[in-house]
Structures are given as structure tokens and as C-alpha cells.
């Protein structure tokens, strides 16, 4: 269904709006069209392909900064109205939704049935399901439930020429045909536009509790986190952050230099036991304080930890996401955050311990340092990550820095396969040209 109302960009369903800064990507201001159904999306893509336009799918725009600067960009496809819940059967613990639904809205529906989708991106009120998958990012809950790609059961994608294709299914166990959705999770919309997704859901734990422990060194804090990782307890989330993060975001009422937040869930006795175990692991690890948060504080703390670096209040000059083997986190945080820096930037880190993710944010206290100095900071950090066998992608930085620095880490030889994938699915280079790895 296409409504022909022409107001704010997001209301102008099916109409092409003029260039405007509501949809700017890296300073480029394309035209935009807002779509509310699959047919409209398919038509918009086949038209764009015919006219040789470069398009970028747009969810909530929360992570529009991710990727290299587009080589070309003519039109935004706003999917935020493609937001229906197509199918939800709580008893099956599965749901199929259109890609433009916001993560928060979906979670509200699921919560009514005592369930949730174990994906917690920044800014979930705006972040859409499709956008979150396209950037492949999640938040701290991936600790127990895995990468978002592990929760996708099936996917409907509109290809660059407008063809609608499906893969996977709506059931939790399936090996029929190739698992195509894997290419689109983290594919930044360069091989097709995610239109509909079927997910595996998780029951909400009967009870939850969050502990925050303070330590006087990064090493101690991360070691305590690893001790939890190795213990009999399986937390819902496990995040380490430093005092600077806390000062900026007011994460929780527990203060200290280096903080470890442990989120636990379960039935009453299980929860008590898990709390006991984690408390004692933190004490053994040299914690100066260990406190359980009240319910409201806990909810707020996890929201702030997931949003950090993406909401207005905490927006850094530059952010990176490093993925390393879990035991190497302390080493890279030490090197990157505490080493000397070629530019006067303050480095603040947030780690998903046990999973091996470090979110590294740099803030300029004074005037913005020169472009080359910022780039040098990123390059050194990347070297430190490589030294421990990890990879680091830069998720945001000042536009001039993008010109001389690849936002994506090297992918090595498989880049040839990736280029051929692009040729197969988007030979006209319609979708997000130039934003992905290796100039794809």
C-alpha cells in the first residue's frame, strides 16, 4: 500500500523527497523515499537499478556513520514504515517481522508474552531490526545468546534489481538450502535490502539481578570478568567499563576506577546462587566494592552501557569495535587506553568480557586534533589489536579522517570471494557503493 501524502520525509510514503539533511550520510544529501510494503521496496529498487542510481537502505539512522564514505549516493530508502509484525506465535518462540520495526517496539510486544529477542543495539527506540542486523552489531546480551546472526532463522531480502528472495525458514532447526541470511547480517546492505526476518526468541528470565564491582586496575577488573566466564555461572551479560565511561553516562550508583557489571537471570534459588558465586569471584579478584543494583538502576545501567558512544550525550570523536580472543582484552585495553597517544584524545573503553569485544571511544577534551593525528591514533590501536590476533573496525570518526583511513579492517585473501559476491548480487553497484570492505 502506498499512501501519497507529502509532508515530513518519513511521512511521504512512496514519494521521492528533495535532498534534505534528515538523511545525510557522511555529508552527502541524497533524495529519499519512504516505503511501507515489500512491493514498494521492490519497485523502488528496480527503478533505481534502471536509472543507475546509488541507494542506501535506511532504518532508524542510528548507525548511518558506519562504513567508508559512499562512493556515490543518490537515494535513501527509508524502511521505518515497513514495520509490521508478520507472524508471532509465542508458544513457538519464533516471530517474523518486517525489517523497519524498531527493536524497542518489537521487544515491547514480546515482553507482553514473557519473551525477548536477545539483541540489544544502541538506541533501540530508533534502531530498526534490519539496520541492526545489517551492521551486525549488538550489545552486551550477546554474551550468553551469541551473535545476532545466530538468532536469525530466515530472511526475505530484496535484491538490487528488485527481486524478492527468501532463505531459511520460520523454525528453529533448519538446513534446507544455503544459509543466505549470514551474508546480510553484517553485510551493510551491500548485497540486498533486508525486508523481513524470522527470529528465534528467548523466554525472559523469571528473575534478574545485576552486580556491579569496582576494581583499582583494568587487569584486575578484566581478570575478575574472566573468572566469571570460567565459573559455573552463565551470566546474561558481562561488561567492564572504566570510570570515565561512568562519569560521562552515569551508568550506575557504584563508583570506582574500573567497573564490572554482571547481569544474572533465573528462578529464585538459581539467581541467589549465581549472585553468591559472582560476588565471591569479584571479592577474590580484589574488588573494592561489590553491590547489587536495584531493579530500576539495573535497567538503566544496561541501557546506558548499550547506548554508550551512540547517544548525543556520549557521542565520541571516534569509536572502534575490536574483536579479540577473550583473554587478550586486558592487553589491548592497557595498550590502547593507557599507552601514550599521538593526539590529545581521551580514550574510554567498554568491554564485553568473555566474548572478546572491546568498544573503544576517543573524546577530544580540547580542540579537535589534526586529521592525521586522529588517523594515527586509530592505526596504532589497530596494530595493537592485530598483535593479539584480533580485528578492529572503526565505527565513527570525523569525515576528513575517513578519506585517508579504511574504516574496515583487512579481510585478507577472501576479499576476492567478497568482490565476486557483490558482482553476483549487485552488478550495477546500486546498493551502498563504496561503504563496505575493500571498496565494495
Amino acid at each position: 500500500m502506498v499512501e501519497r501524502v507529502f509532508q515530513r520525509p518519513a511521512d511521504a510514503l512512496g514519494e521521492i523527497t528533495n535532498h534534505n539533511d534528515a538523511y545525510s550520510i557522511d555529508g552527502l544529501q541524497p533524495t529519499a523515499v519512504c516505503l511501507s510494503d515489500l512491493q514498494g521496496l521492490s519497485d523502488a529498487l528496480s527503478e533505481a537499478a534502471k536509472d543507475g542510481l546509488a541507494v542506501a537502505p535506511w532504518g532508524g539512522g542510528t548507525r548511518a556513520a558506519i562504513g567508508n564514505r559512499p562512493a556515490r549516493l543518490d537515494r535513501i530508502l527509508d524502511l521505518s514504515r515497513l514495520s509490521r509484525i508478520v507472524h508471532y506465535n509465542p508458544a513457538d518462540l519464533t516471530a517474523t517481522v518486517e525489517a523497519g520495526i524498531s527493536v524497542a517496539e518489537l521487544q515491547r510486544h514480546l515482553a507482553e508474552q514473557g519473551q525477548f529477542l536477545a539483541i540489544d543495539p544502541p538506541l533501540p527506540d530508533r534502531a530498526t531490526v534490519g539496520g541492526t542486523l545489517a551492521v551486525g552489531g549488538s550489545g552486551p546480551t550477546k554474551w550468553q545468546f551469541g551473535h545476532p546472526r545466530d538468532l536469525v532463522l530466515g530472511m526475505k531480502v530484496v535484491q538490487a534489481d528488485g527481486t524478492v528472495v527468501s532463505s531459511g525458514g520460520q523454525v528453529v532447526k533448519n538446513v534446507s538450502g544455503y544459509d543466505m541470511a549470514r551474508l546480510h547480517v553484517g553485510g551493510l546492505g551491500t548485497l540486498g535490502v533486508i525486508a523481513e526476518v524470522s527470529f528465534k526468541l528467548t523466554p525472559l528470565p523469571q528473575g534478574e539481578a545485576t552486580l556491579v564491582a569496582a576494581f583499582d586496575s583494568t587487569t584486575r577488573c578484566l581478570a575478575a570478568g574472566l573468572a566469571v566466564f570460567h565459573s559455573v555461572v552463565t551470566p546474561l551479560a558481562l561488561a567492564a567499563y572504566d570510570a570515565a565511561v561512568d562519569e560521562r553516562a552515569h551508568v550506575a550508583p557504584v563508583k570506582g576506577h574500573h567497573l564490572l557489571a554482571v547481569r544474572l537471570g533465573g528462578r529464585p534459588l538459581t539467581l541467589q546462587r549465581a549472585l553468591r558465586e559472582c560476588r565471591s569471584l569479584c571479592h577474590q579478584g580484589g574488588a573494592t566494592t561489590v553491590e547489587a543494583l536495584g531493579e530500576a538502576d539495573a535497567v538503566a545501567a544496561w541501557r546506558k552501557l548499550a547506548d554508550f558512544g551512540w547517544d548525543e550525550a556520549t557521542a565520541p570523536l571516534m569509536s572502534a569495535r575490536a574483536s579479540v580472543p577473550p583473554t587478550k582484552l586486558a592487553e589491548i585495553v592497557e595498550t590502547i587506553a593507557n599507552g601514550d597517544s599521538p593526539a590529545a584524545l581521551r580514550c574510554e573503553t567498554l568491554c564485553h568480557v568473555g566474548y572478546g569485544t572491546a568498544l573503544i571511544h576517543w573524546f577530544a577534551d580540547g580542540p579537535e586534533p589534526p586529521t592525521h593525528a586522529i588517523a594515527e591514533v586509530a592505526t596504532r590501536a589497530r596494530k595493537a589489536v592485530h598483535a593479539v590476533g584480533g580485528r578492529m573496525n572503526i565505527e565513527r570518526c570525523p569525515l576528513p579522517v575517513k578519506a585517508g583511513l579504511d574504516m574496515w579492517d583487512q579481510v585478507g585473501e577472501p576479499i576476492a570471494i567478497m568482490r565476486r559476491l557483490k558482482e553476483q548480487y549487485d552488478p550495477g553497484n546500486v546498493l551502498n557503493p563504496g561503504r563496505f570492505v575493500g571498496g565494495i
Partner: protein
Amino acid sequence: MTDQNSLITELKAIVGDTYVVHEPDDLIVYEYDGSVDKGLPLAVVLPDSAQDVSLVVNAARTHRAPIVARGAGTGLSGGAVASEGGIVIALTRMTRILEVDVENRIAVVEPGLVNLELSNAVSGHGLYFAPDPSSQKVCTIGGNVAENAGGPHCLAYGVTTNHVLGMEVVLADGSIQWLGDRTRESTGYDLRGVLVGSEGTLAIVTKVILRLLKKPEAVKTLLAVFKELDDASAAVSGIIGAGIVPAALEMMDDLCIEAAEASVHAGYPDGAGAVLLVEVDGLSEAVEEESEEIQRICRQFGPMEIRTATDAGERERLWAGRKGVLGALGRLAPNYYLVDGTIPRTKLVEVLARIKEMSVESGFPIANLLHAGDGNLHPSVLFDERKPGDTKKALEIGGRILELCVEVGGVLSGEHGIGLEKQEYMPLMFSEADMNAMARLKPAFATGDLFNPGKVFPTGASCADVFQAAVSKVGPGAWI
């Protein structure tokens, strides 16, 4: 012929004479896998390294001989069945555990390693490899990766793809590349992710980086016996609906019970219509709380009896009937055709009732074994291949069961793969455009038709023609 001889000579130069099998009598063991198809290769090569594999791939490509990778050959959809006149690369010499990183819970292994041997090897560190296909005593990690194998304990912990971080592969151009690495997040397209479950059609896996899990503190197994299958199904829905995702949730029907009773004397009560086997693990408190809740739910559906066990030996006894079923089916009929499909869990009652109808109408008994927790069905159509026409009929019933699975919102295969067995059914689930999009992975991996040609995608032949005979060649100790 001379060309074939020269290929064999080249292969021998790569891996040594001993590791090229080409005499017709010796090749017969490689003609089958666990499915119903067969194909005689020109030669079977047993490489010892990725370099060997690469050279073999180059030689085969030059001679335009198709290649089929092979692990233990336990696949149930014909994935490892050779292409006539092609080369089989058997990875059963490459069985090393190259590294166990206990702190990061990672293992790096070769593809020929037997699944269970990995868990055995890391057990001392309190770790295990979670995917546990019922064939785990023999099937290989490479085969698990290619089929994205599941197992009874995948309900809570996920199937193979959730446990593979990276792998070294040999592509059709002979290059050796790493897809993925030791970290949990990837950069660029998740090539590792599409390769898992691609049934040997895109690349040959030569090393795998796997995630290991820590062993739970406590485990409890519950066995609940019901008079009616419907009650057991309702209990399954009740358990999932109560927000419990047990480690395993298995079910079997009256025919399976009869077979198990006859062979392993599991001691099920007379008149049992369904057995539910539930396993919970984790903190001992969690195990207690969840198992109590599960018993409470089961009791709502009037079970004939509920047994529980926590120590390993006792638990093994509760599993014995379940594990013995497949071998025991042979007591009921000379042959069975094992079907693998998944349905939404809430459709269990409906689908099992319709399978029962099919059985009554056709006169073929159908025994139902289910990974009920994730809706994965394994109905086995019992028949006698010596009766003319019965094989075909059994296969047709299998096809109708798959149609039914898709009709209720399910899929063609939950864990055994498409291979040769189900390729003609793909259009039930996927449009031309869907399959076309999948098929484009081959040019992207530059595979051509070198690896496992003619599988997964439909050829246009009728399903029953594709099968020669439906004789499952699984031993008496086997279980699905």
C-alpha cells in the same frame, strides 16, 4: 582411459601410492554414505594436509574430474556419494587436534577428527564440544560443518554453525584461505557462515576453529511415559511455553517404544503410547528448579510414570531406550526410510495425527522419533524392499510427510541436509528466484561444478527415481 590413468598417476605422486584407492573392489566401500544412493568414483584420495588437498584439487580440475569430499560417510542425504568417474577426497587421515586453548575455550582441529573424540580430548579441562549428532562416535567434524549437524543437545546450545569460529578451506582454484578467525565477530561478509551447511559444494574444509563449552555443574534426566502421543506433545508445548529451554527434549511414539522394549528392555510400562526424555543442566539450583517445574507440567497431562536420574550411569539407562531405537527398528521391518523435517513446535499434535493417518491409509507402519523441543521430526517409514513396489511407496510417503511439514510452516530438513535425497523437493520451499540467489554462491566461490556437482538443487528428475533403494545401512548400535 589414458587420461584417467594419468590422473591416478598424478594423485599418487601427491599423496603416495598407499593413499590412492582405485581398484574397483577397494572402491566399493566408498560407494555409499548413510543414505540410499550410490556412485562409483574413479579414485579415492586420502590427503594428509591442506597442501595435499590443494594439489589434488588442481589435478582434478585440470582433468575435469568432479570432487566429492568425504568424512565418515554417515551423511543421510547422499552428500558424500561420489560423482561417477570423479574423485573422492576422504579426510579421514586428517584427524589431529592441533591446539586446545583452554582459557579462550577454543580448539583448532582437522576435519577428519571424529566428533566425540574432540569432547573426550578436552573433557579433562572441563570442556566439551556441544553439537552431538547421534552419529558422534563416528561422524567427522568436517561432515558436521558441511551438514551443519545438530543433535539432541542442540536445543539449548545451538547447532554446528553456532560453534564454528573460523576455518581453513581449499577453494576450487586450489588456493588455501582462512574464513573467519578466533574471534566472535567477523569483518566483511560472513563467508564462514554460508560455508557451514553448504554440503561440500563450495569448498573443502581443511582446518576448523571451534568454540568449546564448559561442562555444566549438574545434569538431570527425566523420563515421562504417557498413554497418548497427544499428551506427550502437549507436555512439550507446556514446557517450552513455561519459558524452559531444556538441554534436550526428545520424544518417541508407541512403535519406537515397542522396538526399544524388544531390544534394550528399557522397562517401559505396558500400553505406553509415548516417551518423553528431558534433560536439564546448569547450576544445581537451576537443575532442581527446572526439573520440578517440568515434572509439574508433565503431571498435568496424566503420565503413566515419571523417572528421574542425576548420576551418569542412571542417566545413561534412561537414555538407553531412546538411543537403541534406530537399531531396534530392524526388528519391526527389514527396511526403514528415515525422514527428517522440522515443523513449528505448536504443530506437533496435528502433524503426528496426520502422519498416523498416512500410515493407516497406506498400510505402512511409521515410527516417530522426534527432537521434539525444536520441532525436528524423524518419522521412519517401515517397509520390506523385497516386496515389489514397496520401496517406491515408502519413499512417496516420505515425500508426503515433507510436503506436510512445509504446508504447516516447517522445512524440508532439520539436520540431515538436502544432498541428493531432497533436491527435487526444494521447490516446495523455495521459488526459482530463491534458488537462483543460492546458486550464485557457486560462481562467487568460483567453484564451477568441481565440488559435489548435481546436489542440493533440483535436477528436474522425479524424487522416487533419484533413489535406487531405501536401505539404511546403519549398524545396530546406531541411534538418531
